């Protein structure tokens, strides 16, 4: 039999902590290094689990679909084609390079809506793993979102194909270096929402419907298929604080005009994102224990 670790996991109704068996001052001091190592190993493990889950989730999803990964290209392309036709022929929209404008919007929106929906169901769908094993359960909604991030990355490569077709719609500029930052913000934002909806969906049965309705609303509140300029004041200033819209505009600006968001735009992205992430985390932590009783 191998030696048992020095570090114990203690669980009570309100707390979970690592430490020596007896919670005295001396014992705590003695175990402090072991506890630190244990925590570090725990974090590494959570990341590893997140990676394995993301990978598996992505593969399993495409196994179920006839066209495989190609499917993630078809859906945004069809959306782009239909919307371009409707808006330019029927409504005579005057936005420049409208197809590319749309494609960027649709690509991002697909990630947002699929990611949030998948995260909402992440804990329910993985009930079996949750019930039987102990690991950082936060990784489940995160993995669901990142797995759709892989989709997004594959589908976005389509933009490269359009460069020769609409050469004027793309601008090669240092602003492109902002893309990782903007996409990082987008991940934090949807992960924050996913934290909250994933735990609530286990406990309440109307959450999945609320999320669907909410996404529909959000779709129209975010300039996915229209430019923000068509909205009249004062509504435009209010909508500018929608972090999803802000991030989307930032991404479009970086790709299509080589422009940078101004200070106000950064604030309108970062502050709401931080708030949503914080609240989502708190909701997750608060309901996490209950979730274990419900799944």
């Amino acid at each position: 039999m191998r030696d048992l670790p020095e570090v114990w996991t203690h669980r009570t109704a309100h707390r979970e902590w690592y430490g020596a068996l007896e919670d005295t001052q001396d014992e705590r001091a003695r175990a402090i290094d072991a506890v630190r190592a244990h925590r570090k190993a725990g974090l590494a493990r959570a990341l590893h689990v997140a990676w394995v889950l993301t990978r598996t989730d992505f593969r399993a999803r495409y196994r179920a679909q006839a066209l495989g990964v190609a499917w993630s290209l078809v859906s945004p392309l069809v959306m782009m084609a239909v919307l371009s036709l409707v808006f330019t022929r029927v409504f005579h929209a005057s936005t420049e390079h409208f197809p590319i404008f749309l494609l960027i919007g649709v690509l991002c929106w697909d990630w947002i809506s699929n990611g949030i929906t998948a995260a909402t169901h992440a804990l329910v769908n993985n009930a079996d793993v949750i019930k039987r094993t102990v690991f950082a359960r936060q990784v489940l909604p995160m993995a669901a979102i990142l797995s759709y991030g892989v989709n997004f990355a594959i589908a976005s490569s389509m933009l490269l194909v359009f460069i020769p077709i609409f050469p004027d719609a793309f601008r090669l500029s240092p602003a492109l270096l902002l893309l990782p930052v903007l996409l990082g913000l987008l991940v934090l934002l949807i992960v924050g929402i996913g934290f909250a909806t994933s735990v609530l969906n286990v406990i309440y049965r109307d959450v999945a419907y609320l999320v669907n309705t909410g996404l529909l609303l959000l779709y129209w509140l975010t300039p996915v298929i229209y430019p923000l300029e068509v909205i009249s004041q004062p509504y435009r200033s209010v909508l500018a604080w929608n972090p999803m819209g802000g991030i989307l505009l930032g991404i479009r600006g970086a790709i299509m005009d080589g422009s940078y968001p101004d200070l106000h735009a950064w604030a309108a992205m970062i502050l709401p994102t931080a708030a949503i992430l914080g609240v989502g985390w708190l909701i997750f932590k608060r309901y996490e224990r209950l979730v274990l009783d419900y799944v």
Partner: protein
Amino acid sequence: MSEPVRNELEIIAGAVAPAPAGPLIVRADQVGKSFRRFERKPFLLRNLLLRLTGRAARVKEFWPLRNISFDIRGGETVGVIGQNGSGKSTLLRLIAGACFPSEGRLAVRGRVAPLLTLGAGFHPDMTGRECAEVNGTALGLTLPEIRDRLDAIVAFAELREFLDTPVRYYSAGMLARLGFAVAVHIDPDLLLVDEVLAVGDHTFQHKCIARIEEMQAAGTTILLVSHALDLVQRLCQRVLWLQDGHLGGDGEPKEVIARYLAATPDA
């Protein structure tokens, strides 16, 4: 409750098997668990409205486990017996860390491999291989470590031809075998077995018991929930008897099982 009785018996008869001298691996201190009881899942919107208007209904609770204290030492094989609904599975889930106690304190150390509620809940489009990988990593191995053991796992589960088949097409028995095979191949310090031996055919059951005995010999601590009292008596050095969520007995298998049978009506 039974502690002092056992000690007295030990002194008088001197017949109880020597206490295993291994280091402590589980300590349950006055542990209780309550669940909320609903007729069905609540609505978020309705609850929010009720809470805002101060008319939130009080939650009904029930306690499948209350006031449980015991120690388990490394290397012990402990049987858990009791009637349906006496809290056996809840106890195992608590030790596995898959839920939190509602009162008292539970301390566990080492790598725990729980074999609880096998079968349901695997992502249906995952293949058997991916299920093994996800479960193995969630239980504490790394991906390369699982790949090293994959051969042994599929051989044990007898699923070699179906390794790359989505588990959607697995039977309940196949899933259970896969789950068992993963859990017994991750080198746990503590193996929690919840009545899983009821699945699988005769041959597979024998293989499972043989594997448990192998792990026992290697010094793995095992907690075995079972209604098969002869199996408990054969494998375990000690038995916990749960009676309506309380500890009805804790001690030498023969004696505790006899008391359990005496206290349980036949029909």
